[in-house]
């Protein structure tokens, strides 16, 4: 009798050992990791709601996470932009997973890296630790946030190094970051924050961007010392940061002589650095009596200021118009169409800008005369910032013309003038 029990128990042990082999247990281990991190960090991740006046329906939502004692929460600037620029109109609220909620005050903002530090009464929610050591491509990350009102969600992804496309330093993260997750933390397998959700690529899938944690650390140390009054408006800070950004961008654009490229019979300004993206296109339909060859470049430096204002970009575009059998008169009329003023169809928000002031004149360029127009407008609530548009239409030939357009957003007037001069002096017709 006792030997039968022994055989059964041994067989059971062997069976258990066999079932416990690593190969069979791969799948549950990964999701266990995500779940473990989720449990570890979720009490520190809050939903941030932007409320209009005293209503309870949010105008916008985002995510934030506790980073310091005294209820300091980190999120994106664009989540709290409305409150920063119009403090009387909007209110901020946080909601922690346990149900604890309360109002938020903005402590400090970083418009260029799209971060903000806010403060609320978060009780004993634990601040999340920051990661110090750099990551390697292929390292795993876990992003937390509240996508599209789905509740707190954890999204597994891969760290793919610095994004090559952005003017600002951003991490390229392969994971599904959706609206609403903005401002949420991205942690490594040890639960340490290495990035903050900021955006995803409009045209891609799973191509997302994070703000590297070093910028968060920088902002946090600024915030620790700041004590802004309740309901303060941050326009001055935002203005100063845009001016600093402009100084840096224009400095980069003006550092070296303007590079020049040949476009047909013309020499025109060309791509200036890695932070500019360029493209070309052509209109050559068979039925049309003219062709248009276009080439444009823009800096990838657009800053979100508030829901109706993006600024900070420098764009230029060249078009070569060639007549096939239009006469001189009709070609001139075609030129007029391309030289037409812009601004139609745009919403004019008189709170942000003054109207445009423009002038036009005939100018002697290298190798040709041209008509040029310059338009300027000034930002109203941000000091010392202008939008400048420059347009050129050459008048050297009855069937061939270059039309060039330069647009600078959110720049100081001196930098705009210097760059405009270099731009115009770089245009030449090589006959």
């Amino acid at each position, binding site marked *: 009798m006792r030997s039968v029990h022994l055989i059964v128990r041994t067989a059971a042990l062997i069976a258990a050992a066999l079932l416990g082999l690593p190969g069979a247990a791969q799948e549950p281990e990964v999701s266990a990791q995500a779940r473990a991190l989720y449990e570890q960090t979720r009490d520190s991740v809050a939903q941030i709601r932007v409320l209009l006046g005293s209503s309870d329906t949010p105008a916008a939502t985002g995510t934030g996470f506790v980073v310091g004692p005294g209820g300091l929460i980190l999120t994106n600037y664009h989540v709290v932009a409305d409150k920063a620029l119009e403090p009387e109109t909007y209110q901020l609220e946080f909601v922690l997973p346990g149900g604890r909620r309360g109002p938020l005050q903005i402590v400090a903002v970083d418009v260029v890296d799209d971060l903000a530090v806010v403060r609320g009464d978060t009780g004993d929610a634990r601040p999340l630790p920051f990661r110090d050591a750099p990551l390697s491509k292929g390292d795993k990350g876990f992003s937390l946030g509240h996508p599209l009102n789905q509740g707190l969600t954890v999204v597994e992804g891969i760290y793919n190094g610095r994004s090559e496309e952005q003017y600002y330093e951003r991490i390229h993260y392969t994971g599904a970051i959706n609206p609403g997750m903005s401002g949420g933390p991205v942690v490594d397998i040890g639960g340490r924050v290495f990035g903050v959700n900021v955006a995803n690529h409009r045209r891609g899938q799973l191509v997302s961007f994070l703000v590297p944690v070093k910028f968060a650390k920088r902002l946090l140390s600024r915030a620790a010392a700041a004590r802004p009054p309740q309901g303060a408006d941050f326009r001055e800070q935002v203005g100063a940061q845009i001016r600093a950004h402009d100084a840096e961008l224009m400095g980069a654009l003006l550092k070296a002589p303007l590079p020049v490229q040949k476009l047909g019979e013309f020499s025109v300004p060309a791509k200036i650095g890695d932070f500019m993206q360029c493209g070309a296109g052509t209109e050559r339909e068979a*039925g*049309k*009596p*003219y062709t248009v060859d276009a080439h444009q470049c823009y800096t990838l430096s657009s800053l979100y200021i508030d829901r109706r204002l993006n600024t900070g970009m420098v764009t230029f575009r060249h078009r070569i118009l060639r007549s096939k059998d*239009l006469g*001189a008169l*009709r*070609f*001139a*009329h*075609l*030129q*007029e*169409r391309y*030289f*037409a*003023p*812009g*601004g*139609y169809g745009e*919403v*004019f928000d*008189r709170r942000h*800008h*003054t*109207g*445009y*002031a*423009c*002038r*036009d*004149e*005939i*100018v*002697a360029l290298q190798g040709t*005369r*041209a*008509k*040029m*127009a*310059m*338009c*300027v*407008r*000034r930002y*109203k609530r941000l000091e010392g910032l*202008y939008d*400048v*548009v420059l347009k050129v*239409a050459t*008048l*050297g*030939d*009855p069937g061939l013309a270059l039309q060039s357009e330069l647009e600078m957003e959110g720049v100081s*007037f001196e930098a705009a*003038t210097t760059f*405009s*001069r270099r731009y*115009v*002096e770089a245009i030449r017709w090589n006959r």
Partner: protein
Amino acid sequence: MEPLAFVEVLGRHNDVLARHAVYRWPARIGRGYDMDVILDDRFVAARHLQIEPAADGRFALTDLQSLNGISLPPSDKRMSAAEVGPDDVVRLGQTQLRVRAPSYAVRAERPLRATAVYRRPVAFAIMAAVLLGLAFWNSWVVATHEEERAFLAFSIVLIFVAAGIWVSIWALVSRTVGGRSNFSGHGFVACAGLTALALWDTLVEYLSFGFDAHWLKHFGTLGAAAIFAYMVYRHLRLNSRAVRSRLGIAAMIVSVTAYGVGTGFQIASDSARQGVQRYSQALKAPLFLMVSGVSPEAFVAEGETLKRKVDAMARAEP
């Protein structure tokens, strides 16, 4: 019996409304039925005026103590007596009179001429054809796409419909006031006026482009207003035989009002479109360019004036 003189009752433009012969001196004029010339004016006394021959073929007038007296227009001064010649007008009450002797020498008769050329339908047709030709030529220059052609054809039709309405209104006024509609005459004036405006506009555009002179545009607007005023003046002349200077003034008032209203609309729509960049986008063929152009630094440096403008705008409306 031979008349001794003729007393003529005149209308507002010195046209003769009635002519009364006078057979004895002194001739007496008034509203009463025992007068030599009976007038039908409530402001004329029963016995108002007496006429007698004076020296040199002139006539002596005496006021017969009427309530309203007599005067010699354009003066309003009341006179108790006056001496008038064959071209002088005397006013009594609301009536104007003139006295002429049978010896008054009239000018030779005028040769009968065919209707003035410009009033004839042929002239109207030719001018309309010219205007249509201009419109088509302009649309050919402007349309570089097929789709635009349809749009432009439609706008030409609109212009002609509008012109037709304008001419019809003038013809109607003509007919009501003068009995003749003068449709061809008005049509000619309207087409000629529109053609002149179009040519003037084009000339100003080319000149202001060629010399890079923006102020020419304002000058152009004044010229256009003058052309419009002259057009209205010719329309009025077809209707009325009033004194030309009066017509001229009327025409100027009409065109100043029209241009004032137009400018008002322009200003109102401009301020509504403040987000729009406004500069002269006119570009013509290079051979029309007369100036050599400023240097790029000079152009960019002038941008300072723009900065000052927007700074002032920001200060005015924070």
